[in-house]
């Protein structure tokens, strides 16, 4: 019996060995592929062309084309998914760089080592600008993007082109068209402001000195939730970006503020001291269905939703000091997340996964930015040193950047930084106190 078994077992073992080896080989391929995915795509930007409008007055189309081109390059660079090759200063022997890329130009660009080529033509049309945007795969010269876009703001056209390139070549959504809402707290001009993700187009949305709470985006980026607070009474309003009208969501005595929207738009959660101490309440966007979520005598505030909508992270000092807690969306199963330090607040849950950014404190007592993983250990200190305060983090929708406020240069200004501490960008630079930034969800 055993005699016959042995060959069968050896065959089995040989097959097993083969499979093991092939799996290891597959693992190598997997690693190679993922490494390639995180490598940057080399893209060549052919200088944008411009024409004056037909039959119209001579315009500053040339300037606008240059602006659009530089914005595109900056956006692609900031996305960290592209190596941007600039052909402006390159000597292009015999290559005409003033027209739409043809086969000859594409072949020449391919020789210079790019995988993709982008080019656009800009011209005015009545009171708007038109951008005809093209992108090609250098390998086969195939046009992969051919789009005509029309709008009043040239910057918006360039940002949109960037997002299209990011999406086509990386599969992920770009954030160049996203906005940041924030508060200005200065004697003149208090209120809620809006700006592009690169700090441009700063404009006041809501002029109201009584707004002292962080403004919050709706899930679809069409509304801003904010509070008007006067004489100890709070009114939470939903400001409609498209119409400029405000809609009252909730009123109460005391502080009711900073509503957080779930990703599906069904529920809002905010904090209110209407019953004495600060607790979290849920409400529907139409103002109905008020439900109390926490009833602990301690202060519970600053809610932020998980991307699944199943959990809420928030600040609570029920343990004696303000810390970040996580609970189910219905208010149950609250458990503590942060254990380092005696001051952890202002949680912001990334829409891309289980990272929560928040304001922590360094050993000198200054506010800093930290990130915790919801599962498991691992607290990352994004900013650490410096005798200044970094506060109020908010994630970009692709989870790759954090906008925050810092008084490192005197007044509070809005900055952007990456979780790996690189990519610090300053978005506001004025004599105001610019605080409480919130990044649009799309």
């Amino acid at each position, binding site marked *: 019996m055993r005699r016959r078994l042995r060959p069968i077992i050896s065959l089995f*073992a040989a097959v097993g060995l083969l499979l093991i080896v092939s799996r290891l080989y597959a693992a190598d391929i997997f690693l190679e592929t993922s490494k390639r995915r995180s490598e940057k795509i080399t893209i060549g930007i052919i200088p944008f062309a411009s024409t004056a409008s037909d039959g119209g007055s001579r315009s500053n189309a040339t300037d606008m084309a240059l602006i659009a081109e530089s914005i595109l390059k900056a956006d692609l660079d900031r996305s960290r998914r592209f190596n941007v090759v600039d052909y402006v200063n390159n000597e292009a022997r015999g290559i005409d760089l003033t027209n739409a890329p043809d086969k000859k130009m594409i072949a020449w660009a391919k020789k210079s080592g790019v995988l993709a080529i982008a080019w656009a033509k800009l011209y005015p049309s009545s009171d708007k600008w038109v951008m005809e945007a093209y992108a090609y795969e250098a390998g086969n010269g195939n046009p992969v993007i051919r789009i005509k876009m029309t709008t009043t703001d040239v910057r918006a*056209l360039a940002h949109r082109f960037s997002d299209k390139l990011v999406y086509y070549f990386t599969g992920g959504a770009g954030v160049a068209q996203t906005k940041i809402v924030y508060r200005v707290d200065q004697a003149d001009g208090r209120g809620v402001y809006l700006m592009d993700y690169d700090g441009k187009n700063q404009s006041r949305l809501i*002029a109201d000195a009584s707004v002292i709470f*962080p403004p919050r985006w709706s899930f679809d980026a069409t509304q801003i939730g904010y509070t008007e607070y006067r004489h*100890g009474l709070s009114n939470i309003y939903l400001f409609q970006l498209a119409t400029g009208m405000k809609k009252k969501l909730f009123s109460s005595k005391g502080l009711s503020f900073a509503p957080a929207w779930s990703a599906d738009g069904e529920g809002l959660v905010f904090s209110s001291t209407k019953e004495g101490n600060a607790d979290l309440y849920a409400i529907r966007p139409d103002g109905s269905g008020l439900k109390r979520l926490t009833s602990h005598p301690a202060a519970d505030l*600053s809610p932020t939703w998980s991307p699944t909508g199943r959990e809420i992270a928030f*600040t609570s000092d029920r343990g004696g000091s303000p810390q970040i807690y996580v609970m189910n969306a219905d208010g149950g199963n609250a458990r503590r997340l942060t254990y380092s330090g005696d001051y952890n607040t202002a949680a912001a849950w990334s829409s891309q996964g289980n990272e929560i950014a928040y304001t922590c404190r360094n050993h000198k007592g200054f506010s800093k930015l930290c990130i915790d993983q919801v599962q498991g250990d691992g607290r990352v200190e994004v900013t650490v040193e410096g005798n200044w305060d970094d506060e109020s983090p908010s994630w970009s929708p692709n989870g790759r950047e954090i906008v925050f406020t810092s008084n490192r240069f005197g007044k509070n200004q809005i900055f952007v930084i990456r979780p790996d501490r690189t990519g610090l960008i300053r978005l506001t630079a004025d004599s105001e106190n610019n605080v409480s930034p919130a990044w649009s969800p799309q």
Partner: protein
Amino acid sequence: MEAVSRKRDRLFLLFSAMFIALLLTGCPKKVSPLAKTPKSPAIINDRSLEGGEGRFDAPPDGGGTATVDEEEIPSTTVDASAGNPEEPVMSPKLHGQGGKTANLTDIFFDYGQSSVRSTDIPLLEKNVKWLLANPHGKIEVEGHADKRGTNEYNLVLAEKRARAVHEYFVQLGIDSSKILVVSFGEERPFCTVEDEACFQENRRAHFNVE
């Protein structure tokens, strides 16, 4: 002879078992890129160029966020006045003017604390005495915090301070309906110097009486 072959059989079985175990545990996960459809704001007139089929060409006849012939013009600047506040917001008082309003002294708090210091109770009693002796309208108790810490948490902390004072006032005989509790968090500092002395001056309850 028998014993040796039995040993070899066992070895074969052992190795086979190991291989099977490795087989079962060695599966690399396939990762697919998150190819999310971007929710592009449908505010820009987006048209695919003639003769081309790009990824972002609008699907024929309706559907998708970037539809052909969309005429809407986006407006990034919306002038929306939410109305002027009925009363001007209290501006920070000049340093050195003292924190008294209508003979009511400010009360100060310890760092991170909202309870009234026992040493301040006589001050509160003095304030109440004045209020009871003089006719007045609404009493506004403002809670404040120093700048350290986050805005939201300081708003809640400052309100707790104002509420604590409100409690004492009520206990000492003031009509609760005449007291209004207001919080300004760290937003309306009394002073802006970066030292402990100034921080202490900002951790206060301040009074306004009609």
